[in-house]
């Protein structure tokens, strides 16, 4: 089985880049040991539709992104199957944005969306500065996000072994130019 871990987010917007930073973090910290499967890690930035050719190649996809949900607070972590999650997407009149959910929706329309799970986290909006700093809430959420990924990959018969301790803060400074070690395998 070919598995894609896809990080989504705009790294110029602090917490909103967490999806992208987080996959660099996993890539730096862990080795992925699998008997029969492959794990590919991709920093999807905010490319939306342009990621379609990449996404459809895999059997299983884990999308990591910021989400909005009712009754939530920054740092809350969610994990759900794209198909099992409520299907309603807020497309705001006829003026909406094409981003990750819509992209998945478009692949679904073409009937070749792989099994897709979403690991979402609620960002803290730090509006008026442009730096690579993250909020404490999101930094604290990383541990839980990590556990979710470890458990989920375990189910898919993949072991994650620590090769080097790093922090998400360190990674966030270099994500924009860092080479991914576990890049696309297919």
């Amino acid at each position, binding site marked *: 089985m070919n598995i894609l871990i896809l990080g989504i987010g705009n790294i110029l917007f602090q917490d909103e880049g967490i999806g992208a930073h987080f996959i660099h973090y996993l890539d730096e910290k862990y080795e992925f040991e699998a008997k029969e499967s492959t794990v590919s890690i991709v920093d999807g930035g905010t490319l*939306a539709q342009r990621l379609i050719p990449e996404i459809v190649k895999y059997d299983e996809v884990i999308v990591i992104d910021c*989400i*909005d949900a009712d009754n939530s607070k920054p740092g809350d972590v969610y994990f759900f199957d794209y198909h099992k999650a409520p*299907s309603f*997407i807020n497309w*705001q009149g006829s003026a909406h*944005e094409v981003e*990750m959910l819509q992209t998945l929706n478009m692949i679904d329309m073409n009937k070749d969306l792989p099994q897709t799970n979403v690991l979402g986290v609620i960002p803290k909006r730090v509006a008026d500065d442009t730096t690579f700093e993250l909020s404490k809430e999101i930094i604290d959420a990383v541990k839980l996000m990590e556990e*979710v990924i470890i458990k989920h990959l375990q189910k898919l018969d993949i072991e994650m072994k620590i090769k080097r301790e790093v922090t998400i803060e360190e990674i966030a400074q270099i994500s924009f130019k860092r080479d991914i070690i576990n890049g696309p395998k297919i």
Partner: protein
Amino acid sequence: MANKRVIVDPITRIEGHLRIEVEVDENNVIQNAYSTSTLWRGLETIVKNRDPRDAGFLMQRICGVCTFSHYRAGIEAVEDALGIVPPLNAKLTRSLMNMALFMHDHVVHFYHLHGLDWVDVVSALDADPAKASKEAFDYAEFPIATGENDLKKVKTRVKEFVAKGQLGPFANAYWGHKTYRLTPEQNLILLSHYLKALEVQRELAKLMAMFGGKQPHPQSLTVGGVTCVMDLLDPSRMGEYLTLFKVGADFIENAYQADVVMAAKMFKDEPSVTAPAGVMNFMSHKEMQLNRTEFLFDSGIIENGDLAKVFEINEDLITEEATHSWYSDNEALHPYEGKTNPNYTGFRDMDTVGPDGKMIHSKVVDEKGKYSWIKSPRYDGKPMEVGPLAAILISYAKGNEKIVPLVNDFLAKTGLPKAALFTTLGRTAARMIQSRAIAKHGLEAFNTLIENLKVDQDTYTSYKIDKDKEYRGRFIGDVPRGMLSHWIRIKNGVVENYQAVVPSTWNAGPIDSLGQMGPYEANLVGLKVQDLSQPLEIIRVIHSFDPCIACAVHVMDKKGNDLGTYKVDPIYGLSC
């Protein structure tokens, strides 16, 4: 009766946060319009004091749609500053990547971002596939995905989609709006192409990635040249470019071109898309290098809609001011001297027309003060429209022999006069004409590259950055949404100042100190809105510019859903 205010927010079907507020009189005619970006873009601050060679990598993160454009601009601005001329192979490779970007962007824009402003999906479900299949031959020699069976399948597929409740992109639009003009059969043809375009855009996305070295976020452009040498010397790689290019070119000719002609014929009596453009000044920069000396599109400026004279661009006359933008320095400054110090003054309270037509309490822009994160770029003090329409008009006015026949062909097929080009309809058509020009002539760059590689395999020009010297340079070029420029100053070996003047700034900027509106605002004034609770006319006008307010807040919007069951509990782990 006093004017009423209507808010459309967000209006982009794509990256970024754009909000439009309009004031209508008792006849629903727009008297005033305010275009505002509600998102701070501090890109200029993040590159300061960094290695100039990193600028391109940071710039490409500005936005998911324009990523290649800003990457290239970030690289080429530094090259200009350091006085580097990359080898021809590098220039042509960048040109090929750029063509792929334009083809992808324009197709996606017409079908997936703008298409539903013209196509009534619900009406398509009543169409007769046999009749529609026949009609498709009126517009294309070899129609795509419009066989009777294809169209039957599309109807079934969309009906299924609707029945499942997963409307996705078809949810919440203004179906049945009076200003839709296509017949059910025509709507069905376009709907079929909407779905086909989902497939074609994948191929075009691959085409874009071909020479990127890495996908996503290409890394093959570097200050001095390109690094994808192995790809250029690999015949199968080059062959793949050719094949995918032709897939795109075929779709552009036999679907996109055909559909825009069909829509233009049907909408030519619809005043909301045929009113004259609000700003009649147009500016574009030469783009798409085809060989050693020639570019597909020309540089220049047209003033007051006069196609008889094209002025050359004097870069010194470009300024940005912030009288009505949330920055502290109001004065008009050349981008080399540009300042980006935020001064957010917020919104004010007012009653506006809500989604159901009733008045509701809202926050609205303070139009007398500051009201947008976008600055107001001006050329010689005047507002300019940039984008495919500007590129096509300027090349047309200059007698560009590759562009003139395509414009004339469109006018002949639709029976429209030249004046029709200066409209919302013309803007949407110009994007198609630009795509068609690339589809028809783009491979000249490919052939030149192949020929040149036989005798010259240089892809890189070496250089040194002297820490004791000061440099400044810029990139100016046309990208899918219009003229883009990046301006850089380098001191002590690091970035001293950086300014990006993006196309959507030219088009979407607020009024300037003289009260002159930019194209978005000016194009809305005078527009009549049939139904204030369904402002499709406003959306159609604004979407014709392909708004992309460079920078996205990327949050999956699952609001209103019961996501609680999927919350991961920190102590007990996964709850699902």
